[in-house]
């Protein structure tokens, strides 16, 4: 009969003897699935970069006679309403998702992290003012804000979409990096360095940065996944790049009206999109376990 204990305090606080009771597995192994995910993400990125050089059917080429066709030898993923090849549209579409997500995170990081690290080090009024500002930006629901801005700031292009999403990534990055930096900055070795007269920049680079890198890497991955999903949702609502330029989101949107006749248009971009996001999240999660970092809450 299962013992009805609420908690199983197996390891007392002290050490027993001189052995510390460690968990049997030291560092969580990365595992096969991890490398599969890395491979998948890598593949997507690679294909996105070299898309132009691949022997793909023109993603914009209309072919009304074979519209809504299922997968075939010629069209691996079938064709959409206008007879365009879905496979090539999915590959070309990945560029949008990847460009926007990496671009937005880049903006978020390049502005958010230095500010956050500096604030965590300096504290005082600078920190208070900046943090209040950032946290109030966070209170503004990001999704709603992006929808609003993108519906007015027309005509839309890749740059605008990336910029807007990137803008709202800044406070998220700021919050995570600041929390992580604060944890490090309050540690004695940093205070020791400060007492020794080291300049802020030096401390940031040598003491804080190496210690928060695992958290940042993990967050980047989860952030990219989130932005890919966000861009997909925006495209789905018609608020990102518009057709005929393909993107995963707007392809899924186009598939809405023809779900019963052409499920392929909904299926393939969705699967590719979901796998991409799941892989990114999985990699981020495994790395987090590997470096034994606390869970990052976005």
């Amino acid at each position: 009969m299962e013992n009805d204990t609420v908690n199983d305090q197996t390891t007392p606080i002290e050490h027993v003897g001189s052995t510390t009771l460690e968990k049997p597995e030291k560092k969580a192994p990365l595992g096969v699935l991890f490398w599969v995910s890395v491979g998948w993400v890598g593949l997507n990125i690679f294909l996105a970069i070299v898309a132009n050089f691949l022997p793909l059917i023109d993603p914009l080429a209309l072919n009304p006679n074979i519209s809504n066709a299922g997968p075939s030898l010629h069209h691996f993923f079938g064709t959409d309403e206008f007879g365009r090849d879905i496979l090539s549209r999915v590959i070309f579409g990945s560029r949008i998702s990847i460009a926007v997500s990496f671009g937005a995170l880049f903006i978020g990081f390049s502005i958010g992290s230095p500010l956050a690290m500096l604030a965590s080090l300096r504290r005082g009024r600078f920190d208070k003012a900046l943090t209040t500002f950032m946290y109030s930006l966070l209170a503004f629901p990001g999704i709603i804000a992006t929808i609003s801005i993108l519906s007015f700031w027309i005509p839309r292009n890749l740059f605008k979409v990336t910029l807007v999403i990137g803008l709202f990534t800044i406070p998220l990055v700021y919050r995570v990096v600041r929390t992580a930096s604060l944890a490090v900055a309050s540690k004695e070795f940093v205070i020791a360095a400060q007492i020794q007269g080291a300049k802020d920049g030096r401390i940031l680079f040598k003491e804080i940065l190496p210690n928060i890198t695992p958290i940042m890497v993990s967050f980047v991955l989860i952030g990219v996944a989130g932005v890919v999903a966000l861009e997909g949702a925006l495209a789905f609502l018609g608020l990102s790049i518009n057709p005929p330029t393909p993107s995963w989101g707007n392809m899924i949107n186009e598939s809405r009206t023809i779900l019963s006749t052409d499920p392929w248009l909904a299926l393939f971009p969705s699967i590719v999109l979901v796998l991409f996001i799941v892989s990114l999240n999985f990699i981020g999660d495994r790395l987090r376990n590997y470096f034994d970092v606390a869970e990052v809450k976005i």
Partner: protein
Amino acid sequence: MARYILQRLVTLIAILFVVSIGSFYLIHLLPGDPVFLILGFNYSPVTKAILDAQLGLNQPIYLQYFTWIGHVLHGNLGTSFISHQSVGSTIMRALPIDGELIIISQILAFGAAIPLAMKAARNPDSVLDRILSAGSFVLLSVPGFIVIIFLVLFVSIKLGVPNTGPATYVPFLQNPLVNLTSLMLPSLTIAIGAFVLYFRVLRSDLTGVLQEEFITMARSKGISTRRIMWRHAFRPASVALLGTAGVNIGGALAAGFIVQFLLAIPGLGFTLVTAINANDYLLVQGIVLVISAAVVIVNFIFDFIIFLVDPRIARD
């Protein structure tokens, strides 16, 4: 304690102020002269004059803001030139639907997440726990709109659930049964995304709390496991859950929008997207303001509830 509430109220007003400025400025993001875009085909010297008066477009920008916010605070969000109805009334008609969707979906999500997370935390690594944890990880990665599409694809088309649409929607007070059944599918879809998130957060926090010494102390007092779980473990763990729920309101709302868009349910989301496509910018602006303000206010209510549960927050 009172000081804490006052502090938060001041912050709330400050944020609402920022929100209003943001919403106000949206009009000016439009390329060229916003007047043309707003009026569209209705452009004429008469309508231009009306619009100018409504928004005070002749004035310098900061005065425009005050004109606009003055109207807003009196309940006047303008009149749409496309639908010829007051923005305010359009919003008021659509708002209850969003409210219902949020309420029902959150009830479903919490109702499922809390007991399941409690069970999973009590029996970590059990079959139930493993299935739920792995499943929720995957589901969490799947974007809401995809879940919705496939759910709709499966349910509506295969099972033939009655169509929803502006024509078929019935307000709750008119006919509760029809109202609830028509909103069940969309609420369920939103609930899934929320459930997955809440389950993960709660389970993780509960597991952490259960390792704490005060739980061992509670055990040593001879208290039943049920009481320990609910009275001693749940309270500290619920803080993170409430925090997540608060933040998630924005996401739940957005998920609601997508569902409405998909199923043509005439809530604010549907109205918003339709308005964007119809270039009804005044309506869009009004909706953005109302929704943003609502989310901010709901967040603050959540913060207050968290404070009631864990007063340590105020002592920082």
